[in-house]
């Protein structure tokens, strides 16, 4: 769908008549957590029948202001006006009753329940007690209406993330939401799924709903939104500007300050081969990696593109030693690491940055100095086995945090308190420390704002310049194209030969990503 076509379909119909009250009006909102200001004088205005983008850095206050609109947080000051009425929103239930629904990044679905049970549960919460069978009927009807299939009897934990999102949207709609807030809905979706979701948002708006789209992806904003609000540091810096009169450059400047347009990374000088995968075969659940061959040289950043779920996680698990291949070999500079333990791989200089920072990398409830020292304990840098030197741990953390420009925490801060971008920097500080020869980074900037994403990617570039070999596994083609001198595509467990030079272009990559070879 082109930009122009999308716009022309936008109904200017009954909902946008002059004088009609806006769907949602937040005025002069202040909110602080433990004395730390999250919002100060923020405002937001949403009209019926529009798709409204809400943009800003991590921590700019987007989620906080939407949580105020959905009754999760009570504002310290300011007013919330829903469809012209001053509605006190004391709890999420009040917001639901007022017709405001939010699809959070982490879905509010009970994983062990079926889709229909989740809907029955939610409807019960607003006093509409219906049986599971009736709920299943409602789900079926609504999903047909929205133009996709969803099995109401399926257990939520068994269906894909895209389907869970649809279940959540259907639940919110069945609760009677006229106002639908989508919090970074496309962050977890593949490109095709994202397109489907965004056109559904458009259809909802055409049917008279008001849709808010919180996002980091400016292209989505340009292609699918009618108006845009930009937030920075708890304030509204661009208030409901019509998209047609707003340039993305202007939005970028407002949201992130002056950031230079980033040039593609110039490949450094390549050294000898560092990582070699020979005919690697892995089976894990439904996923099979089939005969992967790959060669990575010192100073090289090799991209692995592909839609998530095509074997990326399995490849990562195989490289860091959590998954044993059925067949094939892993060599690091001629040392056979195929059967090596994670500790041995680490010692050999193979470091992995997994997709989920807190899943198998950082320990949420440990301090930064502890997290940073965790992988260096064996070396004796932090004291002998019978005694830990808190002082050298702290010094190490202070140096790392400074070197990698980690904001929002010191050595004694718990890792869970950091924002996504800063947590990722901490992880990189640990993994890119001395002795790193090969870095495997899986979606290292997913969910990060522009500025943090650039900082993280620059760290990888710097490490490649110093002679490390880097494998960048990502679903984001722009990222791959900017960072990598060559890239291969992982599709259904098979890795294409690497593309480089003129062959490395979006069209060719896209072909390989969706091809059924």
């Amino acid at each position: 769908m082109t930009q122009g076509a999308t716009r022309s379909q936008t109904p200017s119909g009954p909902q946008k008549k002059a004088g009609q009250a806006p769907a949602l009006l937040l005025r002069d909102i202040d909110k602080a957590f433990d004395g730390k200001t999250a919002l100060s004088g923020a405002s937001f205005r949403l009209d019926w029948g529009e798709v409204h983008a809400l943009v800003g850095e991590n921590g700019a206050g987007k989620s906080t202001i939407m949580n105020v609109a959905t009754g999760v947080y009570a504002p310290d000051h300011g007013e919330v006006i829903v469809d012209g009425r001053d509605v006190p929103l004391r709890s999420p239930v009040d917001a639901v009753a007022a017709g405001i629904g939010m699809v959070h990044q982490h879905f509010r679905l009970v994983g062990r329940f079926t889709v229909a049970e989740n809907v029955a549960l939610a409807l019960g919460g607003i006093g509409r007690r219906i049986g599971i069978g009736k709920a299943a009927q409602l789900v079926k009807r609504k999903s047909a209406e929205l133009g996709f299939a969803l099995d109401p009897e399926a257990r939520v934990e068994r269906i894909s993330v895209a389907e869970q999102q649809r279940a959540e949207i259907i639940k919110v709609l069945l609760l009677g939401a006229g106002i639908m807030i989508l919090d970074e809905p496309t962050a977890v979706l593949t490109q095709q799924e994202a397109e489907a979701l965004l056109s559904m948002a458009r259809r909802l708006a055409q049917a008279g709903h008001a849709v808010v789209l919180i996002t980091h992806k400016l292209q989505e904003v340009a292609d699918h939104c009618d108006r845009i609000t930009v937030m920075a540091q708890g304030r509204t810096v661009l208030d409901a500007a019509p998209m047609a009169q707003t340039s993305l450059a202007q939005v970028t400047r407002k949201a992130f300050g002056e950031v230079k347009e980033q040039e593609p990374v110039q490949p450094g000088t390549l050294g000898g081969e560092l990582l070699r995968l020979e005919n690697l075969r892995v089976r894990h659940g439904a996923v099979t990696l089939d005969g992967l061959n790959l060669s990575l040289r010192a100073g090289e950043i090799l991209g692995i593109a592909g839609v998530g779920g095509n074997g990326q996680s399995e490849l990562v698990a195989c490289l860091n030693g959590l998954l044993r291949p059925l067949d094939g070999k892993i060599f690091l500079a001629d040392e056979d690491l195929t059967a090596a333990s994670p500790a041995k791989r680490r010692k050999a200089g193979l470091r992995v940055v997994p997709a989920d920072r807190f899943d198998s990398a950082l320990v949420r409830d440990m301090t930064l100095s502890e997290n940073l020292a965790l992988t260096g304990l064996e070396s004796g840098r932090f004291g002998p086995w019978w005694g830990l030197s808190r002082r050298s741990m702290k010094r190490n953390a202070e140096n790392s945090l400074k070197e990698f420009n980690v904001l929002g925490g010191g050595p004694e801060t718990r890792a869970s308190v950091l924002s996504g971008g800063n947590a990722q920097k901490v992880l990189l500080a640990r993994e890119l420390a001395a002795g790193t020869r090969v870095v495997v980074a899986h979606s290292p900037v997913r969910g990060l704002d522009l500025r943090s994403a650039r900082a993280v990617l620059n760290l990888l570039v710097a490490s490649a310049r110093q002679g490390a070999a880097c494998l960048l596994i990502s679903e984001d083609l722009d990222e791959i194209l900017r960072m990598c001198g060559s890239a291969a595509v992982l599709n259904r467990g098979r890795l294409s030969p690497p593309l480089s030079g003129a062959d490395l272009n979006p069209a060719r990559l896209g072909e390989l990503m969706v091809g059924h070879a």
Partner: protein
Amino acid sequence: MTDLVLAWLTVFPGYTVPLLLASLGLVISERAGVLNLCTEGLMAVGAMTGALMALAGYDPLLAVACGALAGAALSLVFGVATVVFRADHTLAGLATVALGLGITGVVGRPYVQKPFDGLPRLSDTVWGADLPRLVGQQNILLPLTVLLLLAVWGWLFRTHSGLRLRAVGEDPAAADVVGIDIQLTQLGAVLASGVLAGLAGAYLSVAAAHVWVEGMVAGRGWVAVAIVIFAGWRPWGVLLGAGLFGGAEAAMLRLQTLGLDFPIYLGAMLPYALTLLVFCIACARRRGENAGPAALGKAYLRQDKH
């Protein structure tokens, strides 16, 4: 042989019912997300209170009800600690067991080994004289337990409040957004488990033994905890688990009366060993499927940023 089987069938419910009641209570509490390890203590308090009331000459049914209430009262202590003050569920549970056993030790000491009439068999009641022997040997708590089993199953899986209770145990954040009062739900679930554990205890003294002996619960509370895991937190699985353990215990006692030359302690141990074995096999075959409620034992705080 038929005599033996018949005799076994006659005593079988007596060993199964207390386990079933206690496990059912645990299912309710743990489905709501409260890891409940205090059953052993609650059963002891229920057993002693029931016995004391019976010794004081009250109607046996009233004694049983008081046992259930005593269980509920002690479970309230546990519930307030875990749900309201967010104490660690395991520690609070163990402390409650110690408290329950301590109370029964102190309060019950003067009443130890004093037999009383207790709950009559069905065949001894005015209207039950013509019942067949197998049924007539039982007491009124058996049909009540069957009804409770049906009720708990229907409630958890066929009603709205059951759905809400399970949602709390699986995902309190999701349940909170729906407007469910997490603390009230969990407190209610803990109280229900207290009533059922107290009932199970009172069964041991008032319906089965007709006497109070310190330590008469003899680890059945812990067995109930295991049964619930074995059952995958499902009422019908609980029936199977309780039947298995109760049946084995009853069989051992029957075999002893045959005068077999068999070390008595080994015999007494066998039901536990058998249960352990069956549970290991069951859990190994299940491999993580039907694992417990996702939020079991976790304290929930709402305005938790991060």
